[in-house]
């Protein structure tokens, strides 16, 4: 067991747990977007930052990726943490204003306006879908491409991947946009479940192999009838 203090409370947690797990276990809420139990921690959204250390050496780290260390002093809601979180939410709001999840989080933290140029993006590149596809669905159909402002998620060469089973797992885990629908371009669609309704699931016998997350699903309902 590892002993540490969270917001002044001395606690001990199992070795190998992350600060996020530790804090959650003892009831300290930490907002997250790119974290999901069962998927490896990634640390992309930075919303889960907490302050560790003391004095001039105090710093912010993402609690989902930082391991619980012996004697660590963690503050999950210090002024510095809240200031950073508010700015992150403001940035998120400026880019993805239509996401319900982000709106709710912003509202909870009292962020009521954003001061940047308004953008309308669908994706915050949290990478949950990429990890879902790789770690749970064992498909590796989608991944990150490019870097910096050109970073995006998609299949190799933007054509439908051969290893994609159209399970819909990527859409299921998406925290920001919830069902990113690319129906307009079914050929390029990452999932394309709705656009590709007919071929894979309705008629195919291997439906069982698909580990489908689309429940209830229009296709299944049609099949039943």
């Amino acid at each position, binding site marked *: 067991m590892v002993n540490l203090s969270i917001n002044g409370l001395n606690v001990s947690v199992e070795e190998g747990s992350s600060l996020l797990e530790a804090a959650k276990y003892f009831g300290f809420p930490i907002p997250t977007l790119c974290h999901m139990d069962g998927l490896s921690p990634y*640390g992309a959204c930075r919303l889960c*930052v907490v302050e560790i250390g003391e004095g001039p050496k105090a710093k912010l780290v993402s609690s989902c*990726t*930082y391991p619980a260390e012996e004697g660590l002093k963690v503050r999950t809601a210090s002024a510095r943490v809240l200031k950073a979180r508010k*700015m992150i939410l403001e*940035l998120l709001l400026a880019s993805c204003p239509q996401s319900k999840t982000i709106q709710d989080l912003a509202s909870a933290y009292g962020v009521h306006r954003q001061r940047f140029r308004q953008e309308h993006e669908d994706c915050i*590149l949290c990478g949950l879908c990429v990890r879902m596809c790789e770690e749970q669905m064992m498909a590796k159909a989608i991944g*990150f491409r*490019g870097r*910096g402002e050109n970073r995006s998620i998609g299949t190799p060469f933007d054509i439908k991947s051969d290893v994609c089973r159209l399970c819909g797992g990527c859409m299921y885990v998406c925290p920001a946009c919830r069902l990113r629908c690319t129906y307009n371009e079914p050929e390029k669609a990452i999932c394309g479940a709705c656009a590709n309704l007919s071929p894979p699931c309705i008629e195919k016998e291997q439906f069982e192999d698909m580990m489908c997350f689309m429940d209830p699903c229009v296709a299944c309902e049609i099949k039943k009838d």
Partner: protein
Amino acid sequence: MEKLNFIEQFRTFRRNCLSQGDSVVPTIVVPAGTCGRASGANELIRVIEQELADKGLTEKIGLRVTGCHGFCEMEPYILIEPEQTFYPKVDPAEIPNIIEAVVRGDVLEDLLLKDSESGRIMQKQDDLPFFNKQVRTILSRNERIDPVSIESYISIGGYSAMVKVFENGDPKWVISEVKASGLRGRGGAGFLTGLKWKMLAEQPNGHGKFLVCNADEGDPGAYMDRSVLEGNPHSIIEGMIIGAYGTGVTEGILYVRNEYPLAIKHFNIALRQAREIGFLGEDILGTGFSFDISLVKGAGAFVCGEETALIRSIEGKMGEPRQRPPFPIQKGIYGKPTAINNVETWANIPVIIEGGAEAFAKIGTKNNHGTKIFSLVGKIKNTGLVEIPMGMTIKEIVYKIGGGPAGKSEIKAVQTGGPSGGCIPANKFDISIDYDSLTEVGSIMGSGGMIVMDKNTCMVDVAKYFMNFLKDESCGKCYTCRKGTQRMYEILDDISKGKGTSAHLRLLDELAHVVKDTTMCGLGQTASNPVLSTLRYFKDEYIEHIEKKRCPAGVCKELISYSINENCVGCRACVKACPEGAISGEKKQRHFIDTGKCIKCGACRNVCKFEAVDV
């Protein structure tokens, strides 16, 4: 080449190398690093070879092609040994005359460099203020050897530090020497190399460990590592062998960016020679110690210079940083303990072992020992690589070694540390150059870029330039780094176009602090430095852009207009230079610029000899 199996054989080999040395005949030295070749060194070499062959002088005059010596401003230059006569910016047509002079034992004074103030002729390399103010422990070896010849390196004492370590036989001694020298990582962060090695040596050696040389030098305007790799690749190999012996490592990797073809070529040649002679491989010189180095080429991402991203890149994955801890020293390449050091750090290792830790520690100031190479570029007279002892002031570098401003305008600031660093204003030029002082004024040592800026440099534009670089080079994993750099660029762009408000400035400051605080790796944590340091020292320039919609340096195109003043003598030079035909006027009469047609390219200002074009 015959493989050497014992230390005794090395001694004999070394004596042979020394006896074949070219100390007797005069030798023409041509620096031909990437910089030299770009300015025409290859043509010089060709002409010299031709000339020597034509006149049958190949036996009497030697020719040595080396890596970069540092004085890139004067390239292509040649050096005549043993007098060290320095001919700057040599025209290939002058080569026959120079060679004749060498045969006569004479010097062509017309071609020599003159001191701009006193008009004194400076014949020898050491007469030049650029060279004689430096302490060149690393760079001076570049001019003494042929980078593609191991014999050449051995003849100047190369690999004897390695042999010294083998003879001592105690790995712990190596680490204690490096620790005692106080050498700090030259990549920028300044971690104590000895401590890092000690930690690596203490890691359990279950499945192997790695030593890495980080040559992914990506800062705009910095090329120290390239010059060392090109000019003296064997010193890196020797340093790594010593490090491996001290830490008990059997595998080494050089991670070099693919944009350095000459460095890769020279290092590959050096690796092959070192393997042939038996300095790399199994049972080196009969000591029972085995070590080999492989070369990995980076695909061109700036972020791969960051330790954890570099590790992922070596593993063949996408170069993006990960959380530390676990530190690379605990879990690095393929989960094995890994120590990563910069090229310059490795180049210092043989120097420390050879000369002793104490001698090394004497150079520099407290907690900052040894020399550091900077690439001095920008609006300065003598651009090039300078190697200085730690603790020298910025003033000395800029005015004594660098020779002051290149143009007529005053020097305003120096930018150190690349995109992660900050701008140091002229009133702080008295600070000494070491890791701690630079951090104190809001910049960093970084890998050694030093960009000099004068009154014609707009600090908003500088911040915008670096932010543009960072928004492209951020890996994009952390939301605050990816979006934060984009948004900072957006705001800076607005300010430079006269669309900024004072609310923008507050937002920029707020955002810069959050980006610094919340990102995972060193790139993001320092990405705000260009903004924060310019805001700290040059806020008046920002305010001028915002309130008066004016760019005091005359750089931001949207905020300036060109006009011609009464100094104009009507020479028509600007009329010819203007690509848009926006300037009109008769000969010997004052010209005028049609602001409607003007695209603000500045061509007229560049050609005007009478300072008649105002911004």
